[in-house]
């Protein structure tokens, strides 16, 4: 178990967005967080990555308590996330986007006296990542000019660039074409061999084929948990889920 949350709760004013959530994310497994819109999935992500401070509860990452740790520190400890809406640096090229991520562990980030060409040392690793997500044609294009799906792919590449121990992916397939969905699923499967992955996903067929474990959230609370088959058979899940959204 690499990431664990106990009794997670978050209030906004008088409204409770997340309530008593316990979560265990394991090494080398893909864990899906599903639920209807407004169930609190993204809030859970924000709490786990410390972009939001929980009202109650504790979070441990790799055995360390990170309940009061700053988000950038959490990222440096190896918990890296993607965002629901693609998060790239729009006016940097694809290559630079990846290199910004690669720069961090290399001390290159603080060197203001060196020329940009110092970053060329990262090109080998960067190109490898770019190839692995199939962006080699767009290597020198601006991120802003990419299609939505390609931006998502780029975001995954920058996330992987950090070689994280735990990956939190917020709807990685949303807005993607068919072929991309297949490719990203493959990437995730590959990645999860040596890492833990927690993902929010609406595409239930992807969840069915990819995920080892599923947690269903509803109104900020855990409704059901287990492997896909057992969860999808749960009548409560069926009414809650099918009522609002078709898979």
């Amino acid at each position: 178990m690499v990431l664990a949350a106990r009794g997670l709760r978050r209030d906004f004013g008088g409204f409770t967005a997340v309530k008593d959530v316990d979560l265990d994310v394991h090494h080398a497994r893909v864990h899906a967080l599903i639920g209807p819109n407004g169930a609190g999935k993204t809030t859970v992500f924000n709490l786990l990555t410390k972009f939001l401070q929980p009202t109650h509860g504790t979070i441990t990452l790799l055995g360390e308590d990170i309940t009061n740790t700053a988000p950038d520190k959490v990222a440096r400890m190896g918990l890296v996330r993607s965002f629901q809406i693609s998060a790239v640096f729009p006016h940097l090229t694809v290559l630079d986007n990846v290199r910004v991520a690669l720069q961090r562990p290399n001390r290159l980030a603080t060197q203001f006296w060196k020329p940009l060409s110092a970053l060329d040392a990262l090109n080998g690793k960067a190109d490898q990542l770019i190839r692995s997500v199939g962006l080699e044609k767009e290597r020198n294009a601006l991120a802003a000019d990419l299609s939505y799906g390609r931006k998502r792919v780029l975001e995954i590449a920058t996330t992987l660039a950090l070689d994280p121990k735990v990956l939190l992916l917020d709807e990685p397939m949303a807005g993607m074409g068919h072929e991309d969905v297949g490719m990203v699923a493959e990437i995730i499967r590959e990645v999860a061999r040596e890492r833990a992955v927690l993902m929010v996903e609406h595409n239930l067929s992807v969840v069915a084929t990819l995920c080892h474990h599923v947690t269903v959230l509803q109104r900020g609370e855990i409704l059901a948990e287990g492997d896909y088959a057992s969860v999808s058979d749960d009548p409560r899940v069926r009414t809650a889920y099918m009522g609002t959204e078709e898979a």
Partner: protein
Amino acid sequence: MTLTFELQKQKERTPVVAQTVFLGLGLVLLLLAPLFFYPVFLMKILCFALFACAFNLLLGYTGLLSFGHAAFFGGAAYFTAHAVKEWGVPPELGILVGVVGAALLGAVIGFFAIRRQGIYFAMITLALAQMFYFFCLQAEFTHGEDGIQSVPRGHLFGLLDLSQSSNMYYFVLAIFVIGIAIIWRIINSPFGMILKSIRENETRAISLGYSVRNYKLAAFVMSAALTGLAGGLKALVFQFATLTDVGWQMSGEVILMTLLGGIGTLIGPLFGAALVVTLQNYLATSEFPVTIITGVVFMACVLLFRRGIVGEFYNSRLGRRLGFEHRQKH
């Protein structure tokens, strides 16, 4: 929360030629300028241009709008003037005192200001700079309304007599070029890349593990130090330091210069500064009050050409053909 962008695009080498020609031409013009213009006037433009470029390092390349940069500019002018006049240090050391002082001041103000973003950041820098203004008003060494007067220019490295107007001009030009080179290096460095990415998408930068606050603070201090370079230089050029340079109007002026020249372009602020300084000088002898014009230019810039002069040129057909790619988010 970002404003504008200059894009460093790894492109073919052809535009580089055009840009080098422009750069060389500009340098030659600056070297010859004293033949055609009044040297003190030119030096003033260079000081303000360096100030605006240093300010732009923060606004254009990190996306932080400081409304308190006058504190570093005027503060450094006081530090340099005091060091040179009262302690009798040589000019190069005096300027160094100004730079270090401004950097320390930047560290203090930055420490508080980076806790908030966007508009709040602007308001906090404004308020803290105002506090510094009151300090300067009351402190003994600034001589209140009189200012520190008759600051000797001294001899550079004990050799070059700076009271000679032409010597001083080339000294100012040299410092200006060095300052711009430093800014250029910071922008086009691995560190500058991170600043750009923070400007582009702060949340993403955090999620990649960057302690954004530290980077912002570093950029703030660098900008303050370079502003101090301009301020200290100005104190030597004019041989005094007064309250004008610490007032919040000065913070507004540098924003205007940057906006007018082109936010996020390396040399835009130079044009902005030249224009504003010329305008002020010209209007001084006319009937019409300067503040009205300044205000109207401000509004026009924001409403009509947010790219600024240089930004508009980069974006024009000619500019594009010459390879000055300039993209703006809005």
